[in-house]
């Protein structure tokens, strides 16, 4: 791994610890929900990070279709996978927050439902990549990623309208945010972005190494076959 990696790892660890301290100690206690509200500092940045990663997947997929560059394909794979990890965190912290506050584990509110659908779309994208045989997997995956991106606004509007017809509790909607809370939120987001970068970098190097090993194995069996 290149030299910047250990530096990023240390910075990430420090930033995450600092962000944790801010979230648990420094941030003011919310009036109606109490200390449980602090889940917000993990739930929301994870969601933003997941959406950002999925956007990167979209751009990388388009890049692949235009340039057929292997790096673009690997970036698409990596951003989808790490995006699903962050998405999973959102889907787990959401219900854990909802239960004590509203007494229910799940609510079909806009943000949570959208996150669930995105999670489903990208998990199926990853499964397609895993199950696909033949050398043109990157191409097919890129097309499916674009379909996913096209789907997102449709998903958003369908859930939004459904919600206006059948309102339900909304997780995490504030009115305006106390500036001290916004401060802590941004610190946590910065920390999670560094974590995302770290995870992506690791996954990227892993994928490059795996592909190189596979290529050399294929080369070996080809050579043996010729002898």
């Amino acid at each position, binding site marked *: 791994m290149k030299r910047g990696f250990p530096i990023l790892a240390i910075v990430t660890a420090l930033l995450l610890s600092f962000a*944790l301290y801010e979230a648990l100690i420094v941030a003011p206690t919310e009036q109606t929900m109490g200390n449980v509200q602090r889940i917000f500092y993990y739930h929301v940045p994870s969601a933003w990070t997941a959406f950002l990663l999925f956007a990167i997947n979209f751009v990388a997929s388009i890049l692949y279709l235009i340039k057929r560059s292997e790096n673009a394909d690997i970036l698409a794979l990596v951003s989808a996978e790490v995006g699903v990890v962050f998405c999973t965190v959102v889907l787990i912290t959401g219900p854990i927050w909802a239960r004590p506050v509203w007494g229910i584990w799940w609510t079909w509110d806009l943000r949570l439902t959208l996150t669930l659908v995105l999670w489903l779309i990208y998990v199926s994208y990853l499964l397609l990549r895993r199950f696909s045989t033949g050398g043109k997997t990157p191409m097919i995956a890129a097309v499916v990623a674009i379909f996913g991106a096209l789907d997102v606004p449709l998903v958003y509007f369908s859930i939004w309208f459904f919600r206006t017809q059948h309102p339900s509790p909304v997780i995490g909607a504030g009115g305006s945010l106390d500036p001290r809370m916004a401060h802590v939120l941004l610190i946590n987001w910065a920390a999670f972005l560094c974590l995302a970068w770290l995870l992506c970098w690791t996954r990227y190097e892993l994928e490059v*190494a795996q592909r190189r090993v596979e290529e050399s194995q294929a080369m070996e069996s080809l050579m043996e076959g010729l002898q």
Partner: protein
Amino acid sequence: MNSMHYLYAAYIATWVIHGTYLTILVRKYSRIRKEMERKPSAISNQPSAGI
């Protein structure tokens, strides 16, 4: 104080998820690096494909 349990559960769940993923990645990576070191000739000194 019951609500504090939920707070800790959420934070711990987040760390378990990220930690598990990172551990899996690092383990796979060291395994692959060992395999690459085992057969350095196959990977770095590939004969040019005169096929």
